């Protein structure tokens, strides 16, 4: 990585990066609030808020999943230092998204029917429920306590991202362009992982047994 790498690896640079990422992760909320204050949310603000929070949660989830590949490609450890934070931001936005949905779209009516009958809601809800244990076990002490099982548990994020995408895709009314674009991102993020795990296994098999 050379000179640039040396600078980037300084604790201060990593800290600055963390602050920057935290700032960016707050942006969707800040933009939403500013639109709210400026009444730029139109005549149906509840719907707009629900939608924006959903897309924010999904984008943050994708960003979280992009960190490990980025670390592999660039070798820079800074990417991994923001992984927990982005994961928690994903959860944060998902909670707000759910609350916005309950408050503004459902008005707390018909909750049971909605969560058992509407396929796209079921997918979103499953994604949300699966996010909960990941958020709960994100602390250092939990990581230590769970040991190897932590990693296994957190692999459920691959199921979550697929469920979230399905939740999104099933909302398509007539134009699926945006859903397909996100689908390509999801696919890339999953495929690179499959390829690495193959390479790793092949590498282990091929390595001289000492």
């Amino acid at each position, binding site marked *: 990585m050379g000179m640039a790498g040396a600078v980037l690896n300084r604790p201060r640079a990593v800290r600055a990066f963390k602050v920057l990422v935290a700032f960016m992760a707050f942006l969707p909320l800040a933009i939403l609030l500013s639109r709210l204050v400026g009444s730029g949310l139109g*005549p149906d603000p509840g719907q707009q808020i629900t939608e924006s929070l959903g897309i924010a949660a999904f984008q943050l989830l994708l960003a979280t999943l992009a960190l490990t590949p980025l670390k592999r490609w660039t070798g820079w450890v800074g990417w991994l230092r923001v992984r927990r934070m982005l994961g928690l931001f994903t959860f944060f936005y998902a909670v707000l998204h759910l609350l916005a949905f309950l408050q503004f779209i459902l008005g707390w009516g018909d909750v049971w029917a909605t969560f058992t009958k509407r396929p796209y809601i079921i997918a979103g809800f499953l994604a949300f429920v699966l996010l909960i244990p990941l958020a709960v076990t994100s602390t250092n002490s939990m990581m230590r306590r769970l040991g190897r099982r932590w990693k296994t548990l957190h692999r459920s994020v691959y199921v979550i991202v697929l469920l979230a995408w399905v939740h999104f895709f099933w909302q398509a009314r007539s134009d699926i362009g945006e859903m397909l674009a996100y689908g390509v991102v999801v696919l890339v993020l999953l495929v690179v992982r499959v390829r690495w795990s193959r390479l790793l296994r092949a590498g282990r098999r091929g390595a001289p047994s000492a």
Partner: protein
Amino acid sequence: MLIKNSPAWALPENDVTPEAIYLNRRSFMVSALAASAGVALPGLLAAASVPGKELPSMSRPEMSTSEKLTPYEDVVRYNNFYEFGTGKDDPARYAGEMSVSPWTVKVDGACGRPGTYNLEDLLQPSQYEERIYRLRCVEAWSMVIPWVGVPLAGLLKRFEPASSARYVYFETLHDPEQMRGQRSLFSTIDWPYREGLRVDEAMNELAFLAVGLYGRELPNQNGAPLRLVVPWKYGFKSIKSIVRIRFQEERPKTTWELIAPQEYGFYANVNPEVDHPRWSQKRERRLPSGLLSPNWRETVKFNGYGEQVSHLYKGMDLEKFY
């Protein structure tokens, strides 16, 4: 025609708004009311500066609801018109790319006077009426809009529909050069947008062809220059920017029915008792709806126009014919 002073479906409602006063184009009335009721003048001024040619019309209070109007700005900025994109603000942004004059409407099928008509030849401005209708979207929001136009029945009769004609089919303009939504590679809509009504539905006195709203020519995003308004059905039935009308014996396949028949039926009557796979139809958000004071309403069967239209569906299982 049956004329009543206060039909049940003109749900009583609320106070007079600047927009309601604006509707009253007799300006001396406006100033008198504004003075006596202390109505906010900025709203009036804003409304007076809206674009589009003014369209004088006869008001039809007996065909109108007295509910509070959805503000002009919301009516023209919050639209579903997928020809211009799927976002609610896409139509307002991009519908200007469509040219609406000259405009022709092709009329064919089982009728005595088929042909391609210039829009001006179809319309007699002296007969324009103003009707204030509720509009209920299948997405569970609703508006109250003052339309200007003509009864659909009157226009259709001029084409002398044959007795074999049981359905009327409508088409929206298909022109990807002017309609960017039609250029999308990922749209599942098989353009043009298609809609249809049974002839007896089309001849119902509520069925309306709008050429304007809020006393002026329709903005493009609201379906200029000619759109259907069938207020007892979900909004997607009220097809916009019509270029074709056909009389036919067999029931036409409509756009949303073609895309998702399990979600959208041919009839699409507003009905809180018939659930939609995506949205509960029991309630609606009357727009504008605030965050702290959401404007929830119970959805009424046939959007409150049951007295006018329920006889059309006598004996039909509305769960099956949704």
